[in-house]
């Protein structure tokens, strides 16, 4: 595959700020793997040797130790952005501008999938696509989910995706929130694509292949900040309108003028009997829908997704990890049920009961503690006699004796006092409460 791979890891995790205050989204635990391990491993399996990673400065160190710890053979080209910088996905790609020599595979750091990238690439190549996206059926059985720390059920965001089922051309990719009461489609589009299938059960996996000429286009259009929110809708929409001629006053070039045609594929097109699904239009976007038999694809970009993937760990991970990696999911069979992960340097006290939970590294867990269906990050101290159910405890938190925490989130470095009872709350520093 003549592709260069980029992992976008600069995201702040804005849909789960309760967890990402003191830990980068890329390092959130899935079992005892950091989230970014999954896209890295996927790229290695797909045959990539070099991967560009765009991330915050503070992530550079952990990334390198991660390579060693899990013995990945990837060469990472890390481009860093300042820790406190708010940067969109398109802004991040712009930073990689001068390193891009080939078409680009863009993967978010929060994608867990074993989908064969080759198949996406085939669709991209076959159709001379400008942009090819991977879509995956909605991973949850229902749209309303109860998550720790929230009293009401969260309604999950839904995308509306329109595709020409004959060719897989992408007609529209938009969030449901972009529409008010109705989904609208232009008649002029329907004339060219008289059969359009609209899906509400697909999520954008945030795995895209972009033509390399899109990078200079992005550099010209610095006002576009988000790939998913701005760039992709723009490209999809522009497929159906004519390009404007260069206005000499305009600062930025029209997308029509940025398009570069590959000489070789042009020659192939001219000489083959291939019938072009896009009727010769140069800008075209396609989408590949992951079939039911094509593995697994999941994005960990919300609190719901994070709790879901960790609670289903032992069902989901065997689909994406090899046997060797699975053995790294260390379980303490003697003291707790097999569906648990206990990290390095963590001590469990006498007569502890740990069920269906993930416990990070270097935690101190006292005697007679009950932990059930929880995610406990690193360096957490849980004192004697505590009961923790369905909760997320962030790094360096401390739960004092005989406290009871149910369906809540305890933020980083927070302390729950002795004998306290916490139910469906987010315990965090004051200012962050405002954000929630």
């Amino acid at each position, binding site marked *: 595959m003549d592709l260069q791979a980029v992992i976008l890891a600069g995201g702040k995790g804005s849909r789960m700020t309760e967890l990402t205050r003191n830990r980068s989204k890329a390092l959130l635990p899935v079992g005892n793997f950091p989230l970014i391990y999954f896209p890295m491993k996927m790229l290695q399996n797909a045959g990539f040797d070099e991967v560009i990673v765009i991330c915050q400065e503070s992530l550079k160190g952990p990334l390198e130790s991660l390579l060693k710890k899990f013995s990945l053979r990837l060469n990472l080209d890390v481009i860093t952005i300042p820790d406190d910088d708010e940067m969109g996905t398109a802004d991040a790609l712009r930073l990689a501008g001068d390193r891009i020599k080939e078409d680009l595979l863009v993967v978010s750091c929060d994608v867990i999938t074993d989908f064969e990238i080759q198949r996406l690439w085939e669709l991209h190549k076959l159709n001379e696509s400008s942009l090819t996206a991977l879509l995956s059926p*909605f991973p949850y059985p229902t749209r309303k989910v109860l998550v720790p720390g929230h009293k009401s059920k969260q309604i999950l965001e*839904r995308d*509306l995706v*329109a595709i020409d*089922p004959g060719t897989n051309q992408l007609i529209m990719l938009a969030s*449901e929130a972009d*529409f008010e*009461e*109705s*989904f*609208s*489609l*232009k*008649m*002029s*589009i*329907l*004339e*060219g694509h*008289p*059969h*359009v*299938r*609209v*899906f*509400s*059960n697909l999520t954008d996996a945030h795995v895209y292949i972009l033509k390399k000429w899109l990078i200079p286009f992005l550099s010209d*259009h610095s*006002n*576009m900040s988000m790939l998913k929110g*701005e760039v992709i*809708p*723009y490209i999809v*929409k522009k497929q*159906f*309108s*004519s*390009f*404007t001629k260069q*206005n000499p006053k*305009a*600062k*930025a*070039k*029209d997308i029509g003028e940025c398009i570069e045609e590959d000489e070789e594929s042009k020659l192939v097109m001219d000489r083959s009997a291939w019938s*072009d699904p896009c*009727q*010769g239009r140069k800008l075209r976007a396609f989408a590949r829908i992951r079939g039911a038999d094509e593995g697994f694809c999941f994005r960990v970009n919300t609190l719901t997704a994070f709790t879901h993937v960790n609670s289903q760990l032992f069902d989901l991970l065997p689909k994406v990890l090899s046997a060797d990696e699975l053995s790294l999911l260390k379980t303490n069979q003697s003291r707790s049920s097999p569906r648990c992960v206990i990290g390095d340097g963590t001590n469990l006290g006498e007569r502890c009961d740990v069920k269906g939970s993930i416990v990070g590294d270097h935690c101190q867990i006292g005697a007679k503690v009950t932990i059930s269906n929880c995610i406990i990050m690193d360096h957490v101290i849980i004192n004697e006699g505590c009961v923790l159910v369905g909760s997320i405890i962030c790094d360096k938190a401390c739960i004092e004796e005989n406290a009871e925490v149910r369906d809540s989130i305890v933020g980083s470095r927070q302390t729950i006092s002795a004998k306290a009872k916490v139910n469906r709350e987010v315990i965090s520093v004051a200012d962050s409460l405002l954000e929630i």
Partner: protein
Amino acid sequence: MAPVSGHVGNGDFTDLQAVIVTDSFRDDFPPLSASGPKVLFPIINTALLEYPLHQASLAGVKECFVFCHSHSEAIKEYLRSSKWTRKSSSLEIKVICSEDARSMGDAFRDLDAKALLQTHFIILPGDFVSNVNLLPIVEEHKERCKKDRGAVLTVVYRKVPPGHPARGRANEYVVALDSISKRILFCEEVQHENQVHLPLSLFDSSTSIDIHYDLVSPGIYICSPAIPPLYSDNFDFQCHDDLMHGLLDNEEILGNTMYGHIISDQYCAAVSSPFAYDFIRRSQLVGNVVIGEGTSISDDCVITDSVIGPNCIIEMGVHLSRAYLWGNNIIQANTRVTGGSLLGDGVTVGPDISLPPGIHLASQPPPDDVEFGSPPPEPPAKEVIGVDGKAFVWERCEASSDEEEDEKEEMIEEDWGIGWRRKHEESEESSEGEDKSETDGSGDEDDEDAELSGVMAASDDLKAFYREIEESLRMGVIEKVSCENLILEINSSKYAYNVSMKELCILVTRAIVSLSADTEDPSALLASLLPLLTQLLPLFQQYIKGKESQLDCLAGLEEHAREHPAFALAFMRVLNFLYDKDILAEEAILEWNASGVTLEGSAAEIRKKVEPFIKWLKEADEESDSDGTGDEEEEDGDDD
């Protein structure tokens, strides 16, 4: 009364019933339909009604109601002598006559009042041609009714892409179906819409929805017994479309659901208009000729793609191509009938005449009906149908008075489903820019491209398109048809053959100049061409706008000049004429000229011929406003 054989009458409701409504409750084929029912029109010498009857019997229908409104006696008479009323027939046919019924809805209210439909039944239009196997669709319908107790209707759709001639009037709608269950969620006409709007709530019950703009309904429905009472309960339902909309709007109240069945590999089409009639026959008859009983054909005739009915007399030297003779016709010697012409029963034409292509002739005068613009009842001129001709022309294109002209144009446009499209393009332009680049600062906007759907047409299509417009232009010039109507004809051909605007500009230009006299003498050619150009000037004004199309026009002229040396000699004069009339701008002419400077051969030769004119243009440009237009008149003689 029609022979009604003894009904078994055992109350076995599992037997499938069918209803064939023989009347469309529209006057589609005046005056031909005034003299006889449409369902008895011949399609390749078989009455139309045979098709639905055959279809019903193949689908396992036991009892078939033939509902008649007009011409019921003729239909009864036909059925009495047909094979369907013989003892061996598997169908039991019952003819229901109702003079009062004014709509499809009335027909079903009548059937409900008579309590004839007690089981699931098929509605078949009386005027359609099909090879669809209905049996699996009926089975599917029954299965669905078991699962979804609200299911009352299965609509059969046929896949026909937009712009296809088989899409008739009233077929411009968008249907949305659940991709998995095929339940119909949405159905809306899009005559004047720029967008379709699907309620978001639809996505709560469907994970994926198919939006179709490529479906037409030939009028076949599989109904549950709940349908006739629905018509009775809702007096305002005039047709099946009303029923569908009523069910969709009141779905929550009535709880009734509808499903669609899409066929793409089988044939069905309704004979809803003369255009559809011609198209359906053509699609069945490629390169074939069918000759009816008792017809005699003399020597030296050339007959292609035609259907000749019974008892016709075709005399010497007759040329028939895409001609439909319904029977008892006399085509006298050396007559040409071409281009989809339709000759009703008993029409006589000729001798020694070429009928205008696509003419519709009937043996009786058109009905004196105000609704149809009361065409003059006197027989047409002998120049048209021949000295011994006996026929009346029925031409919808011919406007009889100014007030009705607009209305008629609309009717023609509707027949082709193009009316809304033009409006759509216009309004698109005016509404454009509403979502002016939120994301992009360069100020570009969504100007929708009218050629969006411009399919890379096969060259056969282009040839056919060219032949068609040439023919209509030739007739138009002879009959002095108004340019507006010619534009309509060209536009409909454009849509029929999917021709791009560029190709249209080139081909229309070529077709116009090719109408000039076929002569070697350039001045004679000019003498015939210039009045022609003056007459057809509105066509140029319609299509040749902007530099692109001007270059296309020049390309068309150049192509023609290459093949016709006489025209090449007159080329400069033609350029000059079009320049004077503001069709071609200086800029385009100069660019065209410059584009060929480096070329050799014919392109360079042609440019050489127009050199004086180009030189004058350039000089005039330099002198700018101080220039008079008198001097070019003297230059035109020096090339021959």
